[in-house]
């Protein structure tokens, strides 16, 4: 881990401080002493004798937000270090403005025991540059048969359980997982996919899949499982979080369930409000992802779900793959796209389009995921560790994967004209990333 000289004492001047957890959106200074936020307020005065101890940072025209949280990433370590490591993945995170990531358990071996969870945390401690929160497996080996040891996993540091990458096919196992997770106050994150209905599908089912002769994945494959998990959450009174929501039908189901008071939360990923299925006519595997990118109508419904709060979180589902998995026939290529370093500009585009206010957008990257995972971050309260992201909302640039910190290059947004990005990222008051680097 290479950190630059990190002043623990900083004064950020004249930024637009946006903290949804406190309903704060105003021009202010942020004073950081020994890695902790000491004061937030307009025109903070520092006594003459202390003035020299604080490095000033001009934040005029920039947003100062709580360190962003991406609650759905794949760091690939252990087992697939050629795609990503905890070191490279966390470097990608901070370059994208994220100070906390929750990493999914489908590593090799699977994170289904306390030893693995501790391994990830110790690697993150020594090699990572941001906070890492392991999500442990629901079932041993992700096999969908027996529960993993949630109690031990929780004690070791797991913040949630999920079989992400695979659905929990057995409704009984899902019921037991929800009940058992409730015992330890762990949220269950569900990868909603009916494998039978997917039947080898490669893209969204519809007009375009028929035209391209690619087997389709109907929206119903996601919706059937979303509905099931909502019903099981209702049955058990447990919390369920639905990952990577991609269809209009799922958004409608979640909206209705929330109205009924079901303890369901949900996330979507930037590609589901940005990319249309029509892009697949190039047969470029960079667009292959599960769930698949869908139609214009689904994109609009996902945006509406973000706007009205049906969708609580935006997470990247950062899924690194090398050319070995991606430079293949579309049918044989792996699912997944990297997103840590392209997520924020796509979310800022929603703000410019008027879909979300800055406060709403930042909430989906800070307060909301922090609440779902019950982690004490995602706010700029005085006295807390200074995890903080400085965003330039106006800077224009071209997204270029060659500049990415991630080890992988499977980003469909390469070459896209973008506006807005993280220009400085602080973890515990240490500058772990800045654009002038």
């Amino acid at each position, binding site marked *: 881990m290479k950190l630059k000289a990190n002043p623990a004492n900083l004064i950020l001047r004249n930024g637009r401080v946006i903290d949804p957890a406190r309903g704060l959106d105003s021009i202010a200074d942020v004073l950081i002493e020994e890695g902790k936020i000491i004061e937030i307020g307009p025109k903070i005065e520092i006594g003459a004798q202390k003035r020299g101890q604080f490095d000033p940072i001009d934040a005029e025209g920039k947003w100062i937000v709580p360190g962003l949280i991406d609650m759905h990433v794949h760091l690939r370590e252990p087992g697939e270090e050629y795609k990503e490591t905890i070191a490279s993945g966390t470097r990608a995170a901070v370059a994208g403005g994220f100070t906390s990531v929750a990493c999914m358990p489908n590593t090799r071996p699977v994170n289904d025991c306390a030893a693995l969870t501790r391994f990830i945390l110790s690697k993150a401690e020594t090699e990572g540059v941001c906070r890492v929160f392991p999500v442990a497996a629901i079932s041993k080996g992700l096999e969908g048969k027996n529960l993993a040891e949630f109690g031990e996993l929780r004690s070791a540091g797991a913040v949630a359980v999920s079989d992400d990458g695979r659905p929990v096919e057995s409704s009984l196992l899902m019921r037991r997982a929800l009940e058992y997770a409730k015992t330890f106050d762990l949220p269950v994150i569900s990868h909603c996919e009916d494998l039978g209905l997917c039947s080898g599908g490669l893209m969204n089912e519809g007009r375009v899949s028929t*035209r391209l*002769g690619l087997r389709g994945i109907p929206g119903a494959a996601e919706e059937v499982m979303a509905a099931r998990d909502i019903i099981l959450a209702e049955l058990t009174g447990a919390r369920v979080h639905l990952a990577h929501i991609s269809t209009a039908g799922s958004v409608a189901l979640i909206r209705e369930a929330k109205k009924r008071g079901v303890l369901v939360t949900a996330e979507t990923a930037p590609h589901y409000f940005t990319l249309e299925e029509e892009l697949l006519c190039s047969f470029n595997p960079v667009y292959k992802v599960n769930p698949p990118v869908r139609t214009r109508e689904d994109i609009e419904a996902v945006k509406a779900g973000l706007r009205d709060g049906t969708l609580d979180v935006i997470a990247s589902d950062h899924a690194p793959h090398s050319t070995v998995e991606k430079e293949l026939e579309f*049918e044989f290529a792996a699912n997944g796209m990297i997103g840590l370093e392209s997520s924020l500009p796509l979310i800022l585009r929603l703000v410019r389009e008027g879909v979300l206010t800055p406060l709403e957008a930042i909430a989906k990257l800070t307060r909301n995921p922090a609440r779902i995972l019950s982690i004490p971050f995602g706010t700029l309260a005085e006295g807390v560790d200074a995890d903080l992201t400085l965003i330039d909302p106006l800077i224009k640039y071209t997204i270029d994967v060659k500049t990415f910190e991630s080890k992988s290059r499977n980003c469909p947004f390469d070459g896209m004209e973008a506006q807005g990005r993280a220009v400085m990222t602080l973890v515990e008051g240490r500058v772990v990333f800045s654009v002038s680097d």
Partner: protein
Amino acid sequence: MQFKRKDLLGIRELDVSEIEYILDLARSFKEINERSIKKVPTLRGKTVIHLFFEPSTRTRTSFDIAAKRLSADTYSITASTSSVVKGETALDTLKNLEAMKPDVFVIRHSASGAPWQLAARTTASVINAGDGMHEHPSQALLDMLTILDNKKSLRDLNVLIVGDIFHSRVARSNIWGLTKMGARVVVCGPATLIPPNIDSMGAQISNRLDQCIPQADVIMVLRLQKERQQQMLLPSLREYSTWYGINAKRLEQAKPDVLIMHPGPINRGVEISPEVADGPRSVILDQVTNGVAVRMALLFLLGQR
């Protein structure tokens, strides 16, 4: 006209004048195939590689005969399909063969879109000899040529395509080709074998074969693969045959000059009865004959580049 394409990948991207040009050219090549010395020097010194990632006898032989009758040097490679864990990727196979400076690749692949992906990575010409469930342009062209041998024009012709539309690249290429040329296409089969929104490609959909037969000028019968039962698409071949098999009884309702076509290989007694396959309205073997002429035309156009 000028034919400026590097590759011939799909019917969807061709315009009417290109299709007509290819068919005219194919007609002029038909005569060569009737000679006792069936060879012209047109592509002498050109190298054609048949790169087949999916087994095929008929199409590969047809392309090979076509290339040899034009005096090209031909090589056939049957590669196993790409695998993440072992073996060479399709792209590596292509790049290695490209290094030997061929002029044309004839590519068949079980994965839809693979010829597009590969064509984008080579300077040689690529002819798509069938990709997954997507396109089979030479088949659609030889089908059109065969229809035109028997009918004055494709315009306003009623073409009925019967069977497993879902998995059929022949159906897709023919829907695009025939509708471009002004024919009306109806696809007919059980709903499990009709892909969603195929009407957006320009075909009408029917599930009732007996209602479609009286209007048809051409009936294209598709092969029904026996695995479809295991995929929960059909209860039994027997039931399929009862409802969607083309037999003499059913054809009593057909126009007297209806053409019966099949891209092969046929499952006698499943999708088509032997007396129809071998009967007077069948042009199934004419399709095979025309296949050589159409493929000569395609190789000529791209090989001369």
